[in-house]
């Protein structure tokens, strides 16, 4: 650990009752990387993600962002500098799309006139028509709603994006489309992204680095290609076997056609 990483988790531990959700997790993430946190349900990946923006407070250990302990910053201020997208989306139903997208700017005290221009920019960025600005969340499809969620998270130009199963509730076509669109934004805006997913295929196809979490411990940490090549212990291999077998069967179907 010679140079300070952009994001650093140092022996982070969290207990739920007498069960360890996180059992001393250490992880260093360089600026600009796209990390997928993968693992079965209950492995602690969402808990780990939420310690970064303090939606969960760890019992032990330390999370450092840009070298500073995140607990030194008040939660609300900290979160305004970090994009957060999650499966539940959570658009504010009493505000229109524009107000939803601009909420972080409003909290930061950006004047209304300035916010309007930025909303148009953000709608362009997530490939939504500008006239969506005045729609209510109830009038959006699931994919459209998550695009708005994405625009809302990007509004304040955060360098770090935390994504918790962001495309989990979408149909496969939308899911794939939105995944690839986000990957492009990640490059274009120079973001650092931590994405939680239980879908190994999605992780392998989108991320630069895969961290496998099982029972609150990191069991594998490698680039997708290296992970597919080298695998890990039995449980990690079991996770990797699913996409591999699917790919083989699909290829076999293609071969017989």
């Amino acid at each position, binding site marked *: 650990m010679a140079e300070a990483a952009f994001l650093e988790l140092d022996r982070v531990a969290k207990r739920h009752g007498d069960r360890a959700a996180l059992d001393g997790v250490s992880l260093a993430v360089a600026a600009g990387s796209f990390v997928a946190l993968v693992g079965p349900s209950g492995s602690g990946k969402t808990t780990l993600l939420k310690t970064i*923006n303090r*939606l969960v407070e760890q019992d032990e250990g330390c999370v450092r962002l840009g070298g500073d302990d995140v607990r030194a910053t008040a*939660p*609300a*201020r*900290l*979160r*305004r*500098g970090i994009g*957060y997208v*999650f499966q*539940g*989306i*959570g*658009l*504010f*139903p*009493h*505000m229109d799309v524009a107000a939803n997208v601009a*909420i*972080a700017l409003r*909290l930061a005290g950006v004047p209304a006139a300035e916010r309007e221009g930025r909303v148009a920019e953000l709608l362009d960025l997530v490939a939504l028509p500008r006239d969506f600005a005045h729609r209510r969340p109830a009038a959006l499809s699931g994919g459209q709603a998550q695009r708005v*969620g994405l625009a*809302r*998270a990007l509004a304040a130009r955060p360098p770090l994006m935390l994504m918790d199963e962001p495309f989990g509730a979408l149909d496969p076509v939308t899911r794939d489309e939105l995944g690839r669109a986000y990957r492009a934004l990640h490059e274009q805006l120079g973001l650092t992204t931590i994405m939680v997913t239980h879908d190994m295929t999605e992780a392998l196809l989108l991320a630069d680095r895969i961290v496998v979490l099982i029972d609150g411990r990191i069991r594998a940490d490698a680039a997708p290609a290296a992970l597919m090549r080298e695998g890990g212990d039995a449980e990690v291999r079991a996770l990797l076997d699913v996409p591999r077998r699917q790919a083989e069967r699909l290829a076999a179907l293609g071969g017989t056609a």
Partner: protein
Amino acid sequence: MSGAVQEALAALPELVRAHVLLSAAALGIALVVGLPLALWAAGHRRARVPLLAAVSLIQTIPALALLALFYPMLLIVDRAAHLTLPALGFLPALIALSLYALLPIVRNAVAAREGLDPNVLEAADGVGMTRGQRLRLVELPLGAPVLLAGIRTAAVWTIGAATLATTVGQPSLGNLIFSGLQTEDWVRVLVGCAAAAALAVVADMLLALIESGLARASSRRTLAGTGLLLAALAASQVSWSAGAARERAVIGAKNFSEQYILAAAMADRLHAAGYAAQAKEDLGSATAYRALAAGDIDVYVDYGGTLWANVLKRADTPPAPVLRAALTTELARRDGVLVLGSLGFENAYALAMRRSRAQALGVRSLDDLGRASPGLALGSDIEFLSRPEWRSVASAYGLRFAATRSFSPTFMYRAIADGSVDVISAFSSDGRIAALDLVTLADPRRALPSYEALLLVSPRRAHDARFLAALRPLVGAIPIERMRQANLMVDRDSDKKSPAEAARWLLPPKP
């Protein structure tokens, strides 16, 4: 009839003012206490169940009992802490109504908070809202319909229950309802009910406007609703009476026709003397005297025997002049209360028979009745047979009736009229004694105590020469026959008069 309408309408502005002030203050307190409680309970799951149970428990107490309970409670607090809290009137009514309004406010506020989508709350935290911003920008607007529904329920309940404040001496629209019920003056009852209902509807509509404004996040609607609500509150508080500059004099009255008539007669006299006279009606016997001693009311009429037994705790039955003299010195010494004098009549328990029946049996006095009683049936009101007066008179004259039956007063008079009973326990000033041609039997052994109607003045007014001069003409001015006639004018079923009309007949204003 139009006289009764006019009279009820004339009393309306002042009663509406008092009613709105009480209801709004109670609702305000319930909001100030209830909303933070609910907010706190939302964050403390374990506190929620006991909190909701506690506010529900309050609701199970009948509103009337809750109001009445605060009287002794405030007296105890008063004594323990050596404060001079008014145990009657605004304060007990305010506390009781505030507690009553808590349930719908707290329950709906908790429900509003619980009904919020957890994803929306997570997003609010995720984008970096502080607790205050989350409350203002997300929880309040989204919870507004449920929250406001609770406030609307509370407002309608409070405005309705505020009519009961009359019973603890706080003027409200209940004054019209209770006095109207007592004298069977349905115009007064209807005017009181209609006014209370109108207030409730207006409050509900304005709150509905605010609710729709919050739900649609339309600040124009919200502001319009809030503005109209405040304007309506302010308008109701403007004093419409021309005599606003007059000094206030508060007249107490218990809850029956004679008391209303005498209160109205005193109000006429005090008004003529330049006071703004205000009545606190429907007071209980014990509360009326305490209210006078405490200066919450300035004057009222009570009966010698009642004061003798209830205030001085005496069990003997001295003759009227002795009793009056003893009361005059004792009440002045104890509480500084002035006994201004006797009005000239008694309202005592008296045993009465139909004239024809009494003559046929040769019964003129209770001595005669003692001899005849084994062949007769006694009808009494509900409490007479358990009172010391009955034990005293029964043992003095050896009364042993063949049968005794208890009735509510109205049916007791019906029973003697149709001959179901031979003797009843009447009130000596009751107008129905004359109307039914009854005779009251003489009490040569003075077994029944004297119940002279006495004019009592509060310590505060005991040396107010103008006040005393206004009331002194009433002393000795009302013979029993005229009081009976005046009571009958109010109590009878046809050609009914209001207490104020009866008061003007009883004591015509000086030209």
